[in-house]
């Protein structure tokens, strides 16, 4: 089957590759670009472990084709840290112990990042609604909510 040359901006840098039509975005990121921070969880659009930003919106990268991302911008968990400094959302998960096994964490942080970009001071309900497509089987979500709240505070005091 035909291959397609795609160009995707990943963490702001143009990346080019020739891919099969059926290659999923998550496989493109992990296997072609070597960005293994994005996890594959359920692989059935439920768990959100594979969440990345596509043109600024959090989406499940197991349910997007790499060819659909051609000409678009992607940000993965690797794009959060800048110059050796953790992003407030990462700092929040660190400080509030927002993870146990860590499997859902990249997706949780990307969803949290997108929420705070849209709503700088979300209520607990808004946080819980925003992460309702990201499953965590360890924490019971309490510390994840605290982590996002912590990040919101850090962002507003830094601004």
């Amino acid at each position: 089957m035909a291959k397609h040359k795609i160009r995707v901006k990943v963490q702001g840098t143009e990346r080019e590759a020739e891919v099969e039509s059926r290659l999923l975005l998550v496989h493109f990121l992990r296997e072609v670009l070597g960005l293994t921070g994005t996890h594959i969880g359920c692989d059935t659009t439920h768990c959100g472990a594979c969440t990345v930003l596509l043109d600024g919106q959090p989406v499940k990268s197991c349910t997007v084709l790499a060819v659909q991302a051609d000409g678009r911008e992607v940000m993965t968990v690797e794009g959060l840290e800048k110059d050796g400094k953790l992003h407030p959302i990462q700092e929040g998960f660190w400080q509030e112990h927002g993870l146990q096994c860590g499997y859902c964490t990249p997706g949780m942080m990307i969803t949290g990042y997108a929420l705070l970009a849209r709503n700088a001071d979300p209520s607990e309900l808004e946080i819980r609604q925003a992460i309702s497509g990201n499953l965590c089987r360890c924490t019971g979500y309490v510390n994840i909510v605290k982590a996002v709240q912590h990040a919101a505070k850090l962002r507003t005091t830094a601004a």
Partner: protein
Amino acid sequence: MIPAAFDYHAPATLEEALALLAAHRDDAKVLAGGQSLLPLLKLRLGAAGHLVDIGRIPGLDSIKEEAGWLKIGGRTRESELERSALIRDKYPLLADTAAVIADPLVRNLATVGGNLAHGDPANDHPAAMTALRAEVVATGPRGARTIPIDELFRGLFTTALDAEEILTEILVPAPPPGSGGAYEKLERKVGDFATAAAAVQVTLGAGGEVVSAGIALTNAGPAPVRAVEAERYLTGKQPVAAVIAETARLAGAAARPSADRRGTIEYKREMSRVLTARALRRAIQRAKEQ
């Protein structure tokens, strides 16, 4: 999971997309948000030789009112519907519906047109649009035609859309003053399909009587179920408690669900009744507040 091989097309215009569909017909599928299609292909429950991605065609994703109609572009994302002030203020049934479809991440890609064209009675827009008496615009090689919502769904995953057509727009009649709607969905968890759900749209007259009613059920048969007898019974009456109860009873009786992990037939029918009553009370409340 990896889908069976297919070729991918990203037409820049509607004309190009229609030409691709005409060339490949049943071997082609339209890719909009992909949130139903890609899981099907990955699970290999479906296959297609060609995917025609309408994601790069401009002009298919607007929400606007024009000449007495709400016009929703077929590729409008659920998240856009959810955040639209016009939808929130004037079409609360659609705002309710958009907020409970799948989960927020899926809604960033999933489209209103896709939710209808997929022909899945477990999807939420089919019942919502049935209650609203919407119409869809199907654009094909010979132009556009309008399909009333009651004629769109032919059965499980089957619609009146031809293989050469794309669902380009949804038309919802703008509700007259004194109207309100609501969608009530019972789901086991966020992201699950409805165990049962009810969509209600009503318009009240000057005396508080119901002058028109749309009532439809999700996941209550092979296609969305319009509760015709319930609508007929309610129309012309004052929506007092006993009338709401009888309307809900008639709606529950119209449900033809099948048993699965979400519940037995009896349970789902009962939930259809309960949810219709709740949706109706909320729709009436909203109509009065208007």
